[in-house]
């Protein structure tokens, strides 16, 4: 279906999910892609060697104020975030895809063509760089009580081996004071070693902001949150993450591997002009 063939009024913009190469456009267009809320189908807009995955949407529904209000509705948010991601993930199975930020909307199809031509060089470079790769996420969580117990035991066993009862008491008090610092030291060492170990297996990596306990819904605090871009899907990091989990389990640390994701964390936030 071409957009020109569809009757679209002046208040219809184009929601842009992401960009693929023109060579992959046909395969991506053949996918059964579901639009975001209010979108009239999903299609490809081609310009030169590139193609944007778009959905016609009402500009009144996707203006700044309306989107701000809608994002506050958890059902709308969930539906649209999943729709955005599903389009990108399906495309990812067929071709490298540059993900755009949620609710990127161009006023007209001409504007979509213009953005493709204005940023053609950098988009082509990014597509080449991410070809055949996916993003994986690795998070680690720790159980503070268990970690403190483990660290306290380890330290005391050494210190108390040749101490009398009075000295043992003082040492124990001192250990309690030191424990807070040791927990922090352990956190940063564990995060750093996990990151450097996994980085060796990936093409690139980046640190992602830690999420607070309240947001993750877990029992443990987040210790580590990284993104990696790899060539062989989950299998690229699965054995290494399992190894880290074995190594740190006794300290109350658990690991979680997610993906494959479109390379959200490995595309530039801003595109240079061509």
């Amino acid at each position: 279906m071409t957009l020109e063939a569809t009757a679209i009024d002046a208040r219809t913009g184009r929601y842009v999910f992401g960009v693929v190469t023109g060579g992959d456009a046909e395969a991506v267009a053949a996918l059964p892609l579901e639009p975001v809320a209010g979108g009239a189908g999903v299609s490809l807009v081609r310009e030169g060697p590139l193609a944007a995955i778009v959905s016609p949407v009402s500009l009144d529904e996707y203006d700044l104020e309306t989107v701000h209000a809608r994002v506050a509705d958890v059902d709308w948010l969930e539906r649209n975030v999943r729709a955005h991601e599903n389009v990108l993930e399906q495309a990812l199975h067929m071709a490298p895809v540059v993900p755009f930020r949620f609710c990127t909307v161009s006023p007209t199809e001409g504007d979509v063509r213009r953005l493709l031509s204005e940023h053609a060089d950098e988009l082509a470079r990014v597509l080449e760089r991410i070809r055949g790769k996916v993003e994986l996420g690795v998070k680690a969580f720790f159980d503070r009580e268990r970690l403190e117990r483990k660290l306290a035991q380890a330290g005391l066993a050494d210190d108390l081996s040749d101490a009398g009862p009075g000295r043992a008491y003082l040492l124990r008090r001192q250990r309690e004071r030191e424990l807070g610092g040791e927990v922090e030291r352990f956190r940063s060492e564990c995060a750093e070693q996990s990151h450097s170990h996994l980085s060796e297996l990936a093409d690139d990596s980046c640190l992602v902001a830690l999420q607070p306990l309240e947001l993750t819904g877990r029992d443990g605090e987040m210790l580590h949150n990284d993104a990696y871009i790899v060539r062989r899907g989950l299998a690229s990091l699965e054995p290494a993450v399992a190894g880290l989990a074995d190594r740190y389990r006794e300290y109350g640390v658990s690991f979680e591997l997610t993906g494959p994701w479109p390379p959200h964390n490995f595309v530039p936030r801003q595109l240079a002009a061509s």
Partner: protein
Amino acid sequence: MNEDERLPLEQQITLVELVDRVLNKGVVLSGDVVLSVAGIDLVYVGLRVLLASVGTLERLNSNPAMTASAL
């Protein structure tokens, strides 16, 4: 938001992962080829909605540092 509107925990976990990526990462275009919607901090609004959906917003409001570290 009442109890009935809260998301099941597992669904919320996945959604946080998604929101963190989809609203917070990816290419942001500027200029007149796009509306300015994507450039603003939607993730702040989105994460607050999710927090509210597990009924923790009140607790976080009394601890601004924690809210900030989510972003």
